[in-house]
């Protein structure tokens, strides 16, 4: 089995590759920015850190957008952090831009969601440190093979300033997990052969390694 970790030159790619190799010692885990390699691989890990604008321009300059879209249709794919955010309709960061549109909803700065919530609630929420940096609990909203062996409310490691929420007309069936930082936001989202998480499984110790192991064993079916 070949698992391709998409290399856009940003973020802690080595950590992702290392963690996947550890849980799947017999798999051929490659770090690649070659479209053909992606199309020939069995599974895809789509990581991301930093700014979403940089992420998209790297995707385009490497000519990977079409290959990623094909993989999103066909292969088990795990999005991580910005690799999850990019799958939504709209990302507010860097002046705002369209995402890949696999999921309805938008990715906004914590403080923007915070203002909306704060205005409607009394008393005001406590001051939020941004980025959210650290271990937060993920509540599971529905079963998924990638949650196998992971308890509800398990801790995962998050580092991000922008977070995803659904649009009013969204299909809530795609939301597999949430977390709470000042307000609730999407921690895990999925559809068919795609599963994506806001947290960093590669840095989330035993729970994260279990999720990655589940991914390497996943047949790409949601149920």
């Amino acid at each position, binding site marked *: 089995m070949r698992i391709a970790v998409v290399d856009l030159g*940003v*973020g*802690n*790619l*080595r*950590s992702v590759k*290392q*963690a996947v190799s*550890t849980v799947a010692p017999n798999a051929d885990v490659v770090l690649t920015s070659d479209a053909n390699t992606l199309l020939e691989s069995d599974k895809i890990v789509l990581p991301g*850190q*930093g*700014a979403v604008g*940089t992420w998209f321009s790297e995707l385009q300059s490497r000519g990977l957008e079409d290959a990623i879209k094909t993989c999103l249709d066909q292969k088990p794919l795990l999005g991580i952090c910005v690799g999850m955010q990019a799958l939504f309709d709209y990302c507010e960061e860097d002046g705002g831009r369209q995402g890949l549109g696999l999921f309805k909803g938008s990715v906004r700065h914590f403080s923007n969601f915070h203002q909306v919530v704060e205005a409607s609630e009394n008393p005001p929420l406590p*001051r*939020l*440190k*941004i*980025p*959210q*940096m*650290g*271990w*937060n*609990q993920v509540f599971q909203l529905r079963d998924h093979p990638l949650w196998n062996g992971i308890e509800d409310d398990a*801790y995962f*490691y998050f*580092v*991000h*300033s922008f977070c995803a929420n659904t649009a009013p007309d969204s299909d809530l069936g795609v939301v597999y997990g949430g*977390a*709470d*930082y000042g307000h609730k936001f999407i921690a895990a989202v999925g559809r068919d052969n795609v599963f994506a998480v806001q947290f*960093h499984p*590669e*840095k*989330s*110790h035993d729970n*994260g*390694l279990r999720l990655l192991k589940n991914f390497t064993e996943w047949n790409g079916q949601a149920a």
Partner: protein
Amino acid sequence: MPLAKRIIPCLDVDNGRVVKGVNFVGIRDAGDPVEVAKRYNEQGADEITFLDITATSDDRGTILEVVEQVASEVFIPLTVGGGVRELADVRGLLNAGADKISVNSTAVFKPEFIKEASGHFGSQCIVVAIDAKQTHFFEKGDCYDRWEIFTHGGRKQTGIDAVEWAVKMAEYGAGEILLTSMDGDGTKAGYDLKLTKAVTDAVNIPVIASGGVGNLNHLVDGVKAGGADAVLAASIFHFGEYTVQQAKEAMRDAGIEVRL
């Protein structure tokens, strides 16, 4: 659900060994960094920080090797600092397996570097380390306390106010502040809680308290009285006085949210 407060064992690395100093001098050997990091990973540390405390050009290769070895065995965040001068240094450490890069002296000489680095790699991986020491200044005949920052592993005084500096670094895109009290470092007398509180109140990014932990109550104080988001300690863990697990239990018993 509040974010769990983090406990971060710190490995001061000199020439490939973990060492521990008192007030930045007087070094004692504490073992092989990979073995030490694995031990803390098993004990449930939330993160590990490596500081290359001498950071001469000769040591640079050593720290990259150490980061690579640790990153292949430890699946929690790794912060690495010491001798980061250029974007290429940040890139090199990230490629070696670091998740966050701590910058100290370079930020003081070239504050724009923090803008560049956070713009390029994202605020989430740029930590500004501040080494602060209590000093005094005179105004209209009265003496006032303040905290001044020092660079070069605590050897050079800068005249810069630590609290104002933290605010500026947050504005420049730092994702986190690693705040070390040089007065406290290695003394086991506890964090400088006034300094910690002054900085945590002034900035809207996470602050790691560092310098002076001698017992588990000091960790609790760092969070409760200092307002820190994470607490860093070295010698209480290195020499086997306490495990990370014991530290977390003490924090939980004091009513602090921790990942157990």
